[in-house]
C-alpha cells in the first residue's frame, strides 16, 4: 500500500540525478527542530538529507498501519531570506500535498514550489527504507 504512495509522490529519475550532487559538503542549518514523539502504533521512516541549491532537505515520514499519517521536515534551507521564504511556503504545501494525495484525489498542484525536488527525494528515500 505504501508503494502506491511512493509512486504518486516521487520520481526515481529525480533521485538518481541528485546523487551526482552528493559530494559537496552540506551547509549547516540552524538548530534542528525538535521532532514530535510518536503515538503508539506509529513508526518513523527518516529520509536521507538531500542537497539542493538552497541547502540540505530532510524529511521524516510517520507511518501507521501502512499509511502515511504525518510528514516532518527535519532539515530545510534556512540561510538566506530567500531560503526562508521558500521553506515557509514550499514545505507545508508539499507536506499537505503528500497527505492530500491520499485523502482526496488531487492529481497536481498549481502555484507550486522551488525546492520540491529536495523534499520529494528525501521523502522517496524515507519510503524506500520503509518499503
Amino acid at each position, binding site marked *: 500500500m505504501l508503494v502506491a504512495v511512493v509512486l504518486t509522490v516521487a520520481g526515481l529519475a529525480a533521485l538518481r540525478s541528485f546523487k551526482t550532487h552528493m559530494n559537496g559538503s552540506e551547509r549547516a542549518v540552524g538548530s534542528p527542530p525538535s521532532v514530535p514523539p510518536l503515538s503508539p502504533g506509529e513508526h518513523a521512516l527518516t529520509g536521507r538529507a538531500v542537497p539542493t541549491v538552497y541547502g540540505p532537505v530532510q524529511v521524516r515520514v510517520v507511518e501507521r498501519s501502512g499509511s502515511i499519517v504525518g510528514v516532518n521536515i527535519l532539515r530545510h534551507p534556512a540561510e538566506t531570506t530567500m531560503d526562508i521564504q521558500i521553506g515557509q511556503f514550499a514545505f507545508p504545501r508539499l507536506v499537505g500535498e503528500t497527505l492530500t494525495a491520499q485523502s482526496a484525489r488531487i*492529481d*497536481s498542484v498549481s502555484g507550486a514550489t522551488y525546492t520540491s525536488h529536495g523534499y520529494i527525494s528525501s521523502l522517496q528515500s524515507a519510503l524506500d527504507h520503509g518499503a
Partner: protein
Amino acid sequence: MLSSFPLLPAPVPVTARVRRAEPVMGTVVSFDVPAAAVADGSLDAAVRWLHWVDRVFSPYRPDSDVSLLAAAEVTVDGCAPEVAEVISACTAVRLCSGGYFTAAPGGVFDPSGYVKGWAVERAAAILSAAGSSNHLVNGGGDVQCAGGRPRSSLAPAPVPDSPAPAGPPSPAPGEEPWRVGIADPLRRGRLALVVEAADSAVATSGIAERGAHIVDPHLGRPAAGLASLTVVGPSLALADAYATAAFAMGPARARDWTESLPDYEAYAITEDGDTWQTPGFAPHIAPA
C-alpha cells in the same frame, strides 16, 4: 517548520501509470503518463526537449541563444528557429495585454515568462503525438493536461445514475477530469480550491512561490494587490503568460482584462483574501 497531520485513509493503488519528476529549467517538471509513454520513448523525448529548451533559452547560461541575443552577440537569424517563434508569441501577448507582459523585464531580453509554459505545453504535445491520450505535465506549478485521468486507475467510479457533471471539462468515456489543486497563497500548505481540467491548462501566478517576483512593467516595481491569479484554458503557453500579465495589472484591471479573453477564465485571490472569478470560471471548480 514541523508539521504533523491526523490519520488519513489508506491510498488507492495506481495502475499502469508512471510518475516522473525531472529537475530542469530551474524548477521541477513532473509527468503523469501512461506506462506506454515509457516503453515507446516519448517520455524520454519530452524530457530531452525540456533540457534542450533550458540550454537554448536559459538567461542564466552565458552560452544560451537568449543570453547571446541579449548581449547582441548573435541575431535572431543565428538562433534556433524556436527563438523567433517565442519572440513572436511574446510580442502578441505584450500587445494584447497593453504592455503588462513583456519579454524584456528590466530592459534586457528575457522571455522566461513565456518559455516555461510554452515548453511544458510542447512536452505534453510530444506525448500526444506519440499516441498518449491522457497525461498531465506540471512545470513548477503550471499544468498542461491531455484528456482526463483514466478511471481504471482511480477509486470507484461514480454510480451509474449520478448526474453527469456540467461545464467545460468533458473527458472521454472512461476518464474523469484531472483534479488540480490551486495553492492558497495566504494560508501556506492549504489549497484554495480544486480545478477540474480535461484537455486544458492551469497556470497560477502569485507571491507564494518566490515572494513578490512579478514586476509591473509600467511602474518598474513589484505588482501589488493580488496574492495569486489562476488562468485556465486550452494552451499553457497562453494561460501562463496571461496569468503573469493579469497579475502585473493588479486586481481591478486584471478582472476587466481576463473577462475579455476568449477561451480563458481566471480566478483571483487578493492580498486581503478576497476572491473573484470570471463568469465562465465556475464550471471549472471541482465540487466540494
